[in-house]
Each structure stands twice: as structure tokens, then as C-alpha cells.
């Protein structure tokens, strides 16, 4: 929409627009299954939760971490730990467990997440020590 109009650009808009219209039409036509109101609440709710809650929280955490003496390893460790916790959270809560089917969510996800977070903490600690030693040597 900025750099003038040419054939590949128009083709791209055509394909993209066609897919968007297909998706919207499908959501409406298939309303019995897609429940457009419930769909829209999830769609909008996720955007609001992400932009209004998650990112501001991450930014504030980032400011706090930035005040540390060696922020880089902690920053990396926190990013990886947060992503894996996010991934594990639905399993840790165990909402999906069913009495008739013990093969669903068969593991102790709380313990497993702690193991993973422990490993990340360990690597972060080693990296912090390594960075400090290197900085100390440069200074000394």
C-alpha cells in the first residue's frame, strides 16, 4: 500500500484478500460449529490479554532485569523459562485429565516443569559466573 502498485503486489493482495474473505465467510456460514460470538470473544480477548497484560508485564520485568550487573544471561534464562512454563501450564493444571482415560496427560507435569526450570536456572547461573569472571579478568 506504500510503494506504488505493480502486478506481483496486486496478485499478493488478491490471494491474501481472497483467503481472508474465505476465512470470514467460513466462520459465518459454519456458525453452528464456529459460534461466531464465542470465537470473536476469544479472538479479541487474546489480543487484549497479550497487548494489555502480557507485554506490559514483560516490559516491566525487562526494566528490572536491566538494572542487574550482568543482565544478559538472566534475560535469556527468563525468556526460555517463561516460554516453557507457558507451554506447560495447561498440562500442569491438569484440567484435561479424565478418570476413564489415564493415558491422557500421563506425566507429573509439575515435577517435570520444575526439572526443566532447574536446568535453565543452573545454565543461567553458570553463564552469569562465566561472564563475571571474564569481565573481572579484562578489568584486572
Amino acid at each position: 500500500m506504500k510503494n506504488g502498485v505493480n502486478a506481483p503486489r496486486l496478485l499478493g493482495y488478491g490471494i491474501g484478500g481472497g483467503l481472508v474473505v474465505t476465512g470470514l465467510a467460513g466462520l459465518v456460514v459454519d456458525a453452528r460449529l464456529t459460534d461466531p460470538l464465542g470465537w470473536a470473544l476469544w479472538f479479541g480477548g487474546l489480543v487484549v490479554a497479550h497487548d494489555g497484560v502480557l507485554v506490559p508485564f514483560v516490559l516491566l520485568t525487562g526494566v528490572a532485569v536491566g538494572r542487574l550487573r550482568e543482565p544478559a544471561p538472566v534475560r535469556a534464562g527468563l525468556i526460555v523459562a517463561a516460554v516453557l512454563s507457558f507451554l506447560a501450564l495447561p498440562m500442569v493444571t491438569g484440567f484435561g485429565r479424565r478418570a476413564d482415560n489415564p493415558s491422557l496427560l500421563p506425566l507429573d507435569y509439575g515435577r517435570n516443569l520444575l526439572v526443566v526450570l532447574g536446568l535453565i536456572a543452573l545454565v543461567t547461573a553458570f553463564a552469569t559466573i562465566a561472564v563475571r569472571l571474564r569481565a573481572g579478568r579484562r578489568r584486572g
Partner: protein
Amino acid sequence: MARGSVMRERIETLARGVPGRFGSALHSERVAARLGLWLGISFTAAFVTGLFSHFTQHPPGRLAWPSRPVGLYRVTQGIHVIGGLATIPLLFAKLWTVYPKLWQWPPFRSFSHAVERALVLVLVGASLFQLITGLLNVSYVYLWPFSFPAAHYWTAYLLYGALVIHVVNEWAKVRRWLWTREEVEPRETVTARRRFLGTVAAASGLTVLFTVGETYAPLSGLALLAPRDPRVGPQGLPVNRSAAAAGVTAMIHDPGYRLTVTGAVGTPLSLTYADLLRLPQHTVRLPIACVEGWSAEAEWSGVRLRDLAAMAGVAPDAVLTVESLERGGGYRSSEVRAPHWGDPLTLLALRVGGEPLAPDHGFPVRLIAPNRPGALQTKWVSKVVAA
């Protein structure tokens, strides 16, 4: 009036100042371009494998998909689900990188700018929707009023369409930042960027490492955060729908059980469990490959579906519908088209690992076929109808 305009001016100054407050040099076009490229590749893989999965389950018209390679569906669905989980950190990183642009002032410079931003909203919303409801769905947390497959299917078109338009709009930036090196950057900027991208890649890689074992058996010991363990379940195999949940517990042990082959046949068949055991038995090694991404291989024995079709005199291009004892539900029956029922690996299985099927695995008889979603490997089979 005067006070109002002063107030508005203050708010405007404040709003204009917001993007400038994001201090990190990582909120840059170069980082966004790199993450955008990665996301473009993963969303393309998800869209293609997702459509493949959809059309194996809902084949248009008389179209039939091949029964080989045996493990194709297992691989494509593994890419879809495990790849989708690995996309979550990429998306979060990308949205963090471009977050200052959310607060750009003025919000809309022109009509076309407003349209562009609306389509970005569609792209962001659809991406979050697909990845997060996808994660919840494979964790069996169904907190929504819609049917997940229907919503996921149509939202995929929305996402990919908005993505194509976004790529067209941003392509010049991708080329500029990823394929040309003009200006000299300070070393700290380069280090910080590599560190950030490396961290995001590590988060993606660890996501794969801790989940892929639910479909790739050699790594099953590392699948600490996977919703399934391919070794756990009755007879060492996971189950999706138990006999109790399907409401067939009483029916499957009925001594009057018969497997019937009817419809467009020369000779209708009606066979008891003992009759089936007396027919030539074959043993095959095939995976159950679930649409949720996990898969598990097992040794199945039973009667070849094509032998039964031959006994009943079914036309070679017939479509067989395999029906379960279940009274209802979306997976009560499944269609088996010619390439699949003609395949010697396709069985009506009576045994798994040498033992009669456990009730949860479809006792007395279940369908097992190569290159086919688990949801279509119908259990508790009592009827085959030819058309």
C-alpha cells in the same frame, strides 16, 4: 474550549512520546524481519500440513488420497503440532519487537494506513488464536463454546490471507535487512541482536526437544512436557476415546456380536468373532497417528479388509464405510476409499502385540490402515457397508 485544546495537545504530546520510550535497540526492523522470516516459514508449514490433515478427513468428492508412504500422516501432523508449539516463542518475540508500533501517533495516517493496520490486527489476533487455542486443545483443555476443528480450520485462512498481505507490504524491508549489508553497526548492537535471536531459537528448540518424543519414539524419554507418552496406555498404547466414554462397554462383550459386510456386495457376510479368527490372519506394524500430534507404533494382527471385500464381491472402486458399535459421535464411522482398503496393510485388527484388543483399543475389531489420521481408525467395528 481553550482548556480542551490544551488538554488535547498534552495528550497528543504524551502519545507521540510513547514509542520513543522503548529503549531497547532490539525493537528494530532488522530483528522484526528475521523473526518475520522464521514465522513465515513456520506458518506456511502449519497451513500446508493443516490443509492436508483436513482433506484426509474430509476428502472432496470422489477424490482419494494414497495409502503410502505409511507414516506420511504421522510426519505431517507431527510437523503441524510440534512445529506449532515451537512457533509460540517466535510469535511472542516478534510481537514484543514491534510492540512500540502499536502506539504510533497518529494511529492512522490515511485510509490505506488504516486498512493496513486493520489487517495487522487480523494477523496478530488470528496468530494468537491459532497457537494458543491449539496449545490448549492438545492439552485437552476445552474452554470455548466453538468446535475447535471448525474454528481452527477457518481461522487458518484468515491468518494466512492476512500474512500474505503483510508479506507483500513488508517485503522491501525483509530484503533490505536480510539480503543487503550496507551500514556498519556498532558491535554491541550486533551482539545484542544475535543474543536475542539465539535465545528465541533456543526457546523454540527446547520446546521441540521436550515434546517431540510424543511422536518420535527415540526421544520419548525426553518428552517431559508432552501431553502424551507413546508408551503409556492399555497394552502400552495411548487411547483417545475410551470404551466407557463411547458407551460401548456392554455391547462389545455381547455373545451375539456379528461383523456384517453389506451394501453393494455380491454376497452379504455375517461373521462371528470366532469366524474372523478362522480367516487368514496377517500381522502388520503400523502407527496410530493422532490429529493431536502424538503417534505410537504397534504390531496389529487380523483380517485384511481387501480379503473381506473379495469374499463379499465388492467392486474394485467401491467406497467402504466402516461403522462402530457406538450410537453417536463424530467418529462413529469412517470412509475407506479404494487405495486404502486395497492396501494389504489395511486390517480389521483382532489383536495388538499378540493379545486380543483391550476394550479401549476397539475390542472385538478395529480398523487399522497406513497413512491415515487416528480419528479414522474406527474402533468397535460391527459393520462394513460398500457403496
